[in-house]
């Protein structure tokens, strides 16, 4: 029995070896290689281009989209912040303002308040009563629009000088003429319903700290 099993195993091994030796020289036909090489050449020409297109297109699109988004945001922001003053000054061409530190020609109503012009903002009641006795820095601010006459900045009640140490912004607005009375200034009752221009000083905290009226 065991002998027969060994014979069968041996026969099977011989049969498998014979089959293996019969097939050992078999190879794929030549046309397979030709097709492969053709595919390789075609791929060499086409695939890198398509790969580059597929891999880099999203990055380019994303970059372009991001730039467009940023540009649109900036334009919208500036347009929004400049819209009201621009409308109030419609029809009036303001003269060029002298450069203080970083002039912004596109938004003449919005003036950067830099550290250079901080000293005049320190509230001094005497100086407020005598606008002509400004320091030279204050004069720079006052001369932003030489044709205009302005009061000195009048501090609002919650003014905190510490919030102005890092600068701020002056925003040109129009307020009802009656607002002059709130600050103890004379009001021409004949022109009571008219509006008057004013510069509001905003600190970095976003709050209005002082106001001046402009004629």
């Amino acid at each position: 029995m065991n002998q027969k099993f060994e014979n069968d195993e041996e026969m099977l091994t011989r049969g498998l070896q014979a089959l293996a030796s019969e097939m050992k020289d078999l190879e794929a036909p030549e046309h397979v290689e030709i097709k492969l090489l053709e595919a390789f050449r075609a791929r060499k020409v086409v695939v890198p281009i398509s790969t580059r297109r597929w891999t880099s297109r999203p990055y380019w699109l994303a970059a372009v989209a991001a730039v467009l988004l940023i540009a649109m945001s900036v334009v919208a922001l500036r347009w929004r912040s400049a819209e009201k003053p621009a409308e109030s000054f419609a029809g009036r061409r303001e003269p060029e303002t002298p450069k203080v530190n970083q002039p912004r020609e596109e938004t003449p109503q919005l003036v950067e308040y830099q550290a250079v012009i901080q000293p005049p903002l320190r509230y001094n009641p005497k100086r407020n009563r005598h606008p002509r006795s400004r320091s030279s820095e204050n004069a720079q601010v006052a001369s932003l629009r030489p044709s205009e006459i302005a009061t000195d900045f009048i501090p609002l009640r919650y003014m905190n000088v510490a919030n102005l140490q890092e600068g701020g912004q002056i925003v040109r607005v129009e307020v009802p003429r009656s607002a002059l009375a709130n600050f103890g200034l004379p009001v021409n009752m004949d022109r009571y319903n008219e509006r008057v221009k004013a510069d509001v000083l905003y600190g970095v905290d976003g709050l209005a700290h002082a106001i001046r009226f402009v004629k």
Partner: protein
Amino acid sequence: MKSDLNDSELLRSMLAGDEEALTVLYRRRQGAVYRFALQMSGSKTVAEDVTQEVFLFLMRDGHVFDPAKGSVSAFLLGVARNYVLRRMRVEQQLMPLGDDVDDDVPVLHASNDLCPLEDLTRAETIESVRRAVLSLPSKYREVVVLCELQDISYGETAEILGCAIGTVRSRLHRARALLLAKLRPAAEAEDADSATVKSARCFA
């Protein structure tokens, strides 16, 4: 010379766009892939298609090859195995069972060293073994093809099949038992025929 490079280096060059590297690698490895596909499917058409698919895959996704996991030849045979099994699943008619063997089987060449009768016997034996191998379930067939016909080590076969060496051994053991069971009736019938001839001669 590209032919001096090993398979991994050739693969790298090929992926970098070197056509000569592809040619050398293909000529070096296509035989094993083709024979494996042929022995698994019993069809020359499938074997050609699979060989082509395997090298197309290599061109397209050759970067997935990891030298730490095995050789390029094992990688190619693993890919070939997947393609063969897929073809066999899709086209059930390509999996000949029992006597229903595909017609386009390779022609077995007779050896010049043997006499015609021995040659015929040998050809019959080879044919019966081939049919028996093709009739095995695929998981047994692939270990027989790889270990017995392609003479690949158990370890490399395990890499190709993605299983443990012990699994390869046990499957091979089971496959041989199945082959013997398939081949024994034919051998016994042959013995019976020869016994009949002998007894006839005795009575004559």
